[in-house]
């Protein structure tokens, strides 16, 4: 695993920066245009969450090469307030919906692997991976 990029997210500009990094790496790794757009959208949602709910945090993008499988991994982490009820957040939401914001379940569905770890008052870490097919 090689960390290819690490973007500190503090404002909306940083969201765009993280998107750009993600798109470039996805393109380099050989992802098709739809998958590039999906990965970018996932990064966008994760970065927006950090910006809106934690204030600041970071998006780390790395490439994976495990036994011939090539993948792109996103790690979104912050030291924000954390998520109180992870199960609730991972449910398909009605409140958020109507908007894009299927939020985290949407990100999970855009990617291939997804895990989340969060403690109240300590922060949140989300790791999600997309494999090249």
């Amino acid at each position, binding site marked *: 695993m090689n960390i290819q990029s690490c973007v500190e997210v503090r404002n909306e500009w940083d969201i765009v920066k993280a998107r750009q990094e993600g798109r470039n790496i996805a393109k380099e790794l050989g992802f*098709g245009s739809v998958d590039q757009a*999906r990965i970018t959208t996932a990064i966008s949602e994760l970065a927006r969450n950090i910006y809106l709910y934690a204030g600041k945090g970071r998006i780390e993008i790395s490439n994976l090469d495990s036994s011939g499988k090539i993948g792109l991994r996103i790690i979104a982490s912050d030291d924000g307030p954390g998520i109180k009820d992870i199960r609730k957040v991972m449910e*398909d939401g009605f409140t958020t919906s109507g908007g894009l914001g299927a939020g985290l379940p949407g990100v999970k569905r*855009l990617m291939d692997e997804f895990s989340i770890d969060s403690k109240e008052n300590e922060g949140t870490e989300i790791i999600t991976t997309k494999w090249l097919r």
Partner: protein
Amino acid sequence: MDDREIQLRRYKSILSKYLDDQSEQTLYKGQQFSRKMIEQKISPEEAVSLHVSAMESLYPDMPQEFKNSYAFLLEMMIGYGFAYREHQSLRSRQQQLETEIEIAANMQQTLLMGEMPTVESLDIGAVSKPAKKMNGDYYHFVQDENDCVSVAIADVIGKGIPAALCMSMIKYAMDSAPEQRMQPSAMLGNLNRVVEQNVDPNMFITMFYGLYDSFNHRFYYSGAGHEPGFFYNAENDDFGELYTKGLVLGVSKKPNYREYSKDLQKGDMIVLLSDGVTECRSSKGFIERDEIVAMIRSNLHLSAQEIVNTVYRELEKMQEFELRDDFTLLILRRKV
């Protein structure tokens, strides 16, 4: 060749045919292809991407602006992909909910409605239909060893699943107090305590409870804010109201339930109902209690069960087969 490649080939061939002939025939083929894509749960951004790939392959030298415009379009469709996938997940969840509600409604049916009494002196009819799948109305007959018949009819203010849960509570609360069967006012007082302690403060229950003594043909009854029933006096051929005074269950800690009684002669009838019967709304407005009485009157020659069935069918039709509230109608007629 993988799935996507096969799809791309087919799509390309239909598209290029259309670019040649612009015929309705080819558009129809295109639509049938899209129907298949949807059946295969291909998301909208994937569908647009198929189109883009086909165009790029048909026009390898297309101007850069068009290529860029496709990239932009794809980006925009990702959001629709989000919504689409959420739909898939909601749909499967809903299918399961509907199945659960179906099962629960069947359970409720067997749980709540017990056996009809068979007492020589009484002709009894009952119909109870939920507006949705689960019933927030409730009725129950119990016949004891002395051929006394107790009858309860209740209506939860509220419908659907919560009302049904509430009803199963009432059923077990009643079962747990067999010694109170003989005293309508005590029964309501006890149920009021259960409801008051256990139920959501926003959920109320109206109830009418009565006891028919087959020995002296006297009907004892009390009511808790329930829609008044009717009393039919056969000798005078006259319908009167079965008025009761008493608070809805669950409102007050110590309400007072007055107990009434009525003597029945041969042919006399007790008619009990829920407000779903009187608040039927036809195209001409609400149905008046008088109209219900008139319907019963014109079917007096029938058995109690046939009467309630007939009234239900007439009211169902008047409402264009869409019940707005749970519907319950009971009749007890002294036979001999």
